[in-house]
């Protein structure tokens, strides 16, 4: 199989490391060669962060480049827009609609662009957008945004539900498993 590319984008500290860990575990269990590139260090302090997940028969480069992503999985809508150039022409976006103001917006040096989802749709991007924060709160913790997103992403993969569940179990502490399973389910059934 030709290598498939996922980028996970968001704001440092939002929990993209766990999402990529679960995805890596899942794809490995399906017999793929997998590479996952993470962000550690400076940008984890509230900066824009991008994690790359690549899988296929044989994966060389650990990074995804512009125009190569089959999927953008995004924790924040401004970040979705920032990384649009990375999407393939027919790529799919799965995004949280949550807005987090970056410092230049807070200080008034820049404006937070409006109606981003509508603008993307107008440009014919395939956007699956939902308020993951609300769904995560419904599941029991606002920290579960990452799992809501994975639940939604699972729609687009031909991988049995059971395998997703196993990867969840292997990567989240037992204490939070029920909560995360609920978050996954809410993401999965959400109206995009």
């Amino acid at each position, binding site marked *: 199989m030709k290598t498939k590319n996922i980028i996970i984008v968001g704001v440092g500290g939002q929990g993209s490391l766990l999402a990529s860990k679960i995805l890596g575990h899942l794809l490995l269990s399906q017999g793929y060669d997998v590479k996952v590139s993470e962000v550690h*260090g400076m940008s984890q302090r*509230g900066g824009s962060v991008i994690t790359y997940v690549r899988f296929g028969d044989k994966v060389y480069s650990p990074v995804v480049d512009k125009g190569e992503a089959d999927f953008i999985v995004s924790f924040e809508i401004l970040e979705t827009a920032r990384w649009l150039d990375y999407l393939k022409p027919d790529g799919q976006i799965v995004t949280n609609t949550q807005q987090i103001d970056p*410092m230049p917006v807070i200080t008034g040096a*820049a404006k937070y*662009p409006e109606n981003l989802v509508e603008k993307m749709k107008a440009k014919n991007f395939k956007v699956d957008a939902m308020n993951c924060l609300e769904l995560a709160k419904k599941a029991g913790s606002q920290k579960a945004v990452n799992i809501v997103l994975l639940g939604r992403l699972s729609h687009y993969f031909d991988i049995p539900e059971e395998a997703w569940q196993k990867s969840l179990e292997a990567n989240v502490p037992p204490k939070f498993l029920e909560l995360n399973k609920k978050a996954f389910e809410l993401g999965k059934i959400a109206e995009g």
Partner: protein
Amino acid sequence: MRELMLGNKAIARGLFEAGVCFVSSYPGTPSTEITEEAAKFDEIYCEWAPNEKVAMESAFGASLAGRRAFCGQKHVGLNVAADPLFTMSYTGVNAGLVVVVADDAGMHSSQNEQDSRHYAIAAKVPMLEPSDSAEALEFTKLAYEISEMFDTPVIIKMCTRIAHSQSLVETHERIDVKKTYEKNIPKYVMMPGNAKKRHPIVEERTRNLIDYAEKTPLNREEIFSDKVGIITSSTCYQYVKEVFGDSVSVLKLGMVNPLPPELIKNFAAKVKKLFVVEELDDVIESFVKSLGIAVEGKNILPNIDEFSQNLIAKSFGKLVDSGKLTVDGNLADKLTNSLKTDNCELTTDIPPRPPVMCAGCPHRGLFYTLKKNKCTVLGDIGCYTLGAVPPLGAIEMTLCMGASIGATHGFNKMLGKESENKTVGVIGDSTFVHSGMTGLANVAYNQSNSTIIILDNSITGMTGHQQNPTTGFNIKGDPAGKINLEALVKAMGIERVKVVDPYNLKECDEVLKEELKAAEPSVIISRRPCALLKYVKHNPPLKVNSEKCIGCKSCMKIGCPAISMKDGKAVVDSTQCVGCNVCSQLCPKKAFE
């Protein structure tokens, strides 16, 4: 067992399997996780040292004692540890000694992008360069064999993309290696008479290592074409394979010092056109040129920033496009197509999102106070460097770890009264112990009227929260020795030492004014633990009473990511706010509740 593993964790696994007993490091992105992961093995003694030089010397002592030892650091850390490294090259080792240096091309988390290969050349020690996690693990084990076989420390060079990406590895059992220590003054006491005898041994070792480099499977040819050949290593190898697959020939170097002249000549003879693809400096390219071989590299590729598959495709695409390189049809199309990329218009108006101090960060109140008092702030490296970005914009200089104190001393010595009552040096707790103490000794000894602020958040924050000698805990989280900063500073001869709580703006302001006024050196310790530490209890998030808020934006001056203006009123993001109350001290209408 096959598993997906982070490059740095794979190094740690390699340490375990190689029978390593001792690890001493100082944190630094992208090297930190090696030591954190190694600390999870009960069989390995691990520690955070106060700085890289101490770490390297400690590892040397452990090797001398006959136990395989390790020390890891980021590229700039090797500057600090360069002194022991250069002479360890002369003494050699007893049990194997391996050093990791992690470069950061692209400067994801660094103050410069120096190329560490120069250190291997200058110190005359072998350097290995893995290109994925599996190699990171295997090369680590092999590095210990090379170290003992050739009686030399060995450097493994990592880079951000190998250190911080996960790929598949195969794990094995641990072996046991123990040697005995024997007194050997000519080998281990490096004074001129002995060192003179060791230098020829080093040169002889290099010759032997070159023979090794010619034959080792660390360096391998992948011959697929007689038209184009590419010499490469590390992550660049992966980008080259991504772009060219099996359509060009590749000489993949796993050992980048010393380089194998015969292997390179033979490879060059097999192809019509030869390229070197390497990030940062032209180390391999210059070597190839020195052999009298025609080669291209930095004429088509940059010597700044990191590479990617697109960058390489484009660089070769331009050659094909201009007729300077001919390759087969499919490949030619792929390369030239990479030159056409259209950016999506939606990405043009996107405000940047630079890193910021966390909501509730103890550094924020202190920097607000410095800005308010219009201080000239000479800074240092850590989370608090973010005090340089708007709206605080308080720091005016950052160089390297520890430099704040030395620079403040020199600045004040030259400008005297003009600067003494408004200039401060700021330095974190970990950075102070790393290399600030000697700077302060200079302030105390040569008496500059300097005011130094130690930002004591009880952790090494920037690199992901490691313990240090001021926190009272060791790498495993167990109780450990703890430096008393007040007593230490006083013992150095600084009489004026004050402690403030950076959440208390009034107290910060008063103490700062007082210490700047004083006609002698002084130290202010700004003390409150980092807001991300698990043991820190937070208050419930604040709310703005919109009836009371007059939209004056006073609270916006501290640059807290949890406060923004919506429809002319301040609002608090309850998912971020930790109730530190610094903002509410600025509100003239007491609108925060």
